[in-house]
């Protein structure tokens, strides 16, 4: 294999990966409704988007679910990672395998499992059910992100702190937390993007009273072409990319 061929192949795959997104972005500022011909630059789809109250409300709901579920998942996940790394306890192996299983379980299986649970417990499908579901599928990602950071740290500092009389909470809040903060923040951002982008689980566990953005977009694109979708997709894409870049930078960030 020659060098040109290798770069060519890598370039081709990257082109394949980016071209649909590029088409969406171009069409979001394209005057043509059906987006097959270029008919001049326009912002009218963005204007229409911001005038679409139902869509804006769905976006607001998504934001609320995203922020609350990412925060809860980060708190629970960080504590879980610390517990898995620091403590021995009964059922530790079972907890690790549950984390592993919940990451590998296909979304659709998790979705119906939670739906059955909610219906059995009589939890109304809406904000609360969405929140629980989103926390559940974000949790393993936070745990793994924080856990791998913990593994790379020198834990003798915590033993020193214990010897000097710090209790577990002080060790956690004054020593461990500052050291793992980049991974915690990265886990939050990751959870937030996962939550904002989820279609499969949300489709099952939300009710008609609480519409969120991906499902609203889904119902719009099912009935046909709507250029506002290009605009909202472009915004979603740019937003996700910004968050992911920040989260990756945080993971690489090393304390001096």
């Amino acid at each position, binding site marked *: 294999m020659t060098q040109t061929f290798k770069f060519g192949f890598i370039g081709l795959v990257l082109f394949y990966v980016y071209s649909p997104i590029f088409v969406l972005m171009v069409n979001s500022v394209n005057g043509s409704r059906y987006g097959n011909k270029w008919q001049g630059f326009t912002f009218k789809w963005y204007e229409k988007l911001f005038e679409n109250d139902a869509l804006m409300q769905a976006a607001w709901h998504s934001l609320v679910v995203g922020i609350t579920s990412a925060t809860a998942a980060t708190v629970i996940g960080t504590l879980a990672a610390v517990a898995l790394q620091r403590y021995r306890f009964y059922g530790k192996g079972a907890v690790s395998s*549950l984390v592993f299983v919940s990451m590998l379980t296909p979304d659709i299986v998790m979705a119906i499992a939670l739906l059955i649970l909610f219906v059995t417990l009589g939890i109304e499908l809406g904000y609360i059910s969405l929140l629980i579901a989103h926390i559940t599928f974000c949790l393993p990602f936070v745990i793994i992100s924080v856990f791998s950071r913990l593994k790379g740290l020198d834990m003798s500092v915590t033993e020193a702190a214990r010897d000097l009389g710090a209790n577990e909470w002080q060790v956690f809040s004054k020593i461990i937390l500052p050291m793992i903060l980049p991974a915690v923040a990265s886990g939050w951002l990751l959870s937030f993007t996962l939550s904002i982008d989820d279609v499969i689980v949300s489709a099952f566990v939300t009710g008609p009273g609480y519409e969120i953005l991906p499902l609203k977009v889904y119902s719009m694109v099912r009935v046909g072409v709507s250029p506002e979708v290009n605009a909202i997709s472009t915004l979603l894409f740019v937003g996700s990319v910004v968050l992911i870049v920040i989260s990756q930078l945080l993971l690489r960030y090393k304390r001096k």
Partner: protein
Amino acid sequence: MNMQINQFRFWAIGLATSWLALFVLVPSLMVLVTSFLTRDPDFLIRFEFSLDGWRSVFDPSFISLLWDSLSMALITACICLAIAYPFVMCLMSLPSKWRPIILFLLIVPFWTNSLVRIYAIQYLLGKKGLINDAMLGIGLIDKPLDLLYTPFAVIFGLSYILLPFMILPIYSAMEKLDLRLLDAAKDLGANAAQRLWRITLPLTLPGIVAGSLMVILPAMGMFFVADLLGGSKHALLGNVIKNQFIQTRDWPFGAALSVLMIILLSFMLWLYYRATKLSNRQGGINDSDF
């Protein structure tokens, strides 16, 4: 003070454990139980043992649909593998400072909304879409092809969405490959094809199996891909499950289908363990070898 020590420990362990037990373990068991219950028109399910759900799974008309979905998922995995494996090999031969950057560029789009990206593929594959336009333009075809709403479109969309799930495990398997083995084989006269077939492939087999696992299972569940690209004719297992839960309201059948997916997951995990064992035996260097 002792109280406080235990309190932190208690919450750290208790919170996650109870969350996972309540929202992962219990619901999974409930799916299993539901698949053996009786369907009820008014209350969805009745607590009465029945095999109706499982009988529907083994209904011949459904088996053919299941087969269609499975074969689409398998073809998707093959396409992903065909792109991912050479891609990773090209990547590995680049200077190591380039690798994370290219890998990152590849991963970025996949953290964005998959629904939106499938919608974009509708643009590409449509009658007046870019692919038809391009092929008409260079005179490859006379009239636009029906690309959308075919199994081809569904497979195209699935392999597009799931490609990174094949690339990442293969990449991490390839990273662990001991390059000295390849040098030794070269010195002993093995040509490039022999080195690939006898060394690289067997040693990266766990990566291939892990990648396939992460492609095949979601490929059977992504109902929105079949909805948007396949029309109503080319349904995936995910569409059937969704219908049972949201429209037809046959919960035992839908639950049985989910159990089926979990069985498939366990089978592939078992394959993964076998592959890891195999690659260790076939000359991979382990700590235990010393």
